[in-house]
């Protein structure tokens, strides 16, 4: 058991050190959501009126509405990028080293997903701190309650990323992931607009958004940030995280990528 703990600790510590030592990576991960918050939301606030919807008790600004979605966007980008590199960077080294560990491969992959998720959380909280200064101020306890919600969301998106990277050849570069995974997941979700707005435009678009796991991740975080629990979002996120992680570990096979390259 001790060996497992030491291994998990080592993997998390390494991700943390890499994160601390690569400040540019940290800053670039923050630029994207901040642009959305400071520029996009400012331009859109007049165009998009938000009615009073759960979990909010009053009318809110558009900036307030999109902060949970942008926090999840950080998790989405990091999760996809991290998982993609687990599949396609193997030849480059770090995964090769990881896989020479005598501990079970499923454990190593799970530890790696967890480590990536924990580091993503630091970026999310840095973003929430800036949003706080900008005026989006959820209750203090909400910021704490959001921690497990964000962790679950991060694991869900990393596991989904690993599963997709294992199975889909077109995802071998980040452009493919942007076009086929990140943009559809992000735009077909409740991150930027409440789903009732979407329903006004199109019923089938609404259903796509409602079924999108990313919507549930966003709502789980949104509710937690305002000290509310969303049982449906929690159940969906938990169930899908377990399912995606299981399928991702079962389908993880380094030689698939090599065979694809050869084929």
């Amino acid at each position, binding site marked *: 058991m001790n060996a497992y703990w030491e291994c998990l600790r080592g993997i998390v510590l*390494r991700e943390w050190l890499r994160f601390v030592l690569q400040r540019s990576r940290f800053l670039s991960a923050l630029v994207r959501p901040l642009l959305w918050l400071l520029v996009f939301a400012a331009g859109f606030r007049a165009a998009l009126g938000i009615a009073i919807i759960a979990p909010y008790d009053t009318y809110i600004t558009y900036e307030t509405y999109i902060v949970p979605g942008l926090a999840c966007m950080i998790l989405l980008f990091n999760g996809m990028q991290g998982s993609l590199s687990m599949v396609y960077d193997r030849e480059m080294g770090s995964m090769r080293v990881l896989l020479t560990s005598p501990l079970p491969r499923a454990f190593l992959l799970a530890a790696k997903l967890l480590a990536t998720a924990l580091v993503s959380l630091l970026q999310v909280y840095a973003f929430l701190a800036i949003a706080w200064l900008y005026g989006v101020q959820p209750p203090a306890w909400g910021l704490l309650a959001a921690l497990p919600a964000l962790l679950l969301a991060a694991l869900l998106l990393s596991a989904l990323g690993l599963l997709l990277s294992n199975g889909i050849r077109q995802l071998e570069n980040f452009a493919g992931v942007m076009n086929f995974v990140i943009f559809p997941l992000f735009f077909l979700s409740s991150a930027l607009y409440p789903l009732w707005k979407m329903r006004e435009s199109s019923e089938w678009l609404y259903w796509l958004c409602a079924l999108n796991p990313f919507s549930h991740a966003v709502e789980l975080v949104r509710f937690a940030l305002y000290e509310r629990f969303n049982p449906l979002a929690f159940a969906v996120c938990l169930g899908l995280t377990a399912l995606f992680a299981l399928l991702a570990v079962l389908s993880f096979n380094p030689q698939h990528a090599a065979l694809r390259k*050869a084929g």
Partner: protein
Amino acid sequence: MSALEVEDVGFSYGARRALDGVGFSVPAGHFCALLGPNGAGKSTLIALLSRLYDLQQGDIRVAGHSLRQQPRLALRQLGVVFQQSTLDLDLSVEQNLRYHAALHGMPRQLAAARIDEELARQNLGERRRDPVRALNGGHRRRVEIARALLHRPRLLLLDEASAGLDPASRLALNRHVRALCREQGLSVLWTTHLLDEVEADDDLLVLHQGQLVTHGSAHEIAGQNGLAEAFHALTVGGAARTTATGDGVGAHGAPYKDSSAGRP
């Protein structure tokens, strides 16, 4: 018991056969050179030995443990230095080593003691807090060797470990690994495409087009005319399967590097 036994291993990338019926063994305490031109199948073999790829055909045993049946026991006995550097450049030497110790589930105290020991052995004690990025290529390789030996494997696998090094560093690295082999009874599989890294006493395997075209001691394979000629004949002049007989296979060429005088 052999440190490494490879039995009838085959591997295909789709329709392309990369390895075909490869079998050999590396006895305990031996330095074994695996020689092959680019594309011979060395990298595929290393990927199989380090369990990056799953075996499609045959079996591999490390210190008696089958990679098919007992992969975790086998991996415990295996240290690997990959062709491309696999160190985290921004992390310090010590942080890189600690990470590896953690991957092997080593208790922290034991890891600290082993790291001290290995760094001292590689003459890197003073560089332990330096980021790997600040080290030259030869030193980085030494860090990777220290890392590969932290968990005390029986077999050390080096995949073109000297690639990209200047001639002096290349020679130093080769000598260093040989010394480890002699002094610690470590078995080494050293893959290369450079003939001057092979010495007369080495076990030599020549891989060509996915097949093991010869194996035996280097001086037997080289015969009278030198290893370069023998290698050329095996990999260009015809790929007939050969076992060294002492007569060699070539007719002309530079002799392999005979350093047996310097060995105990």
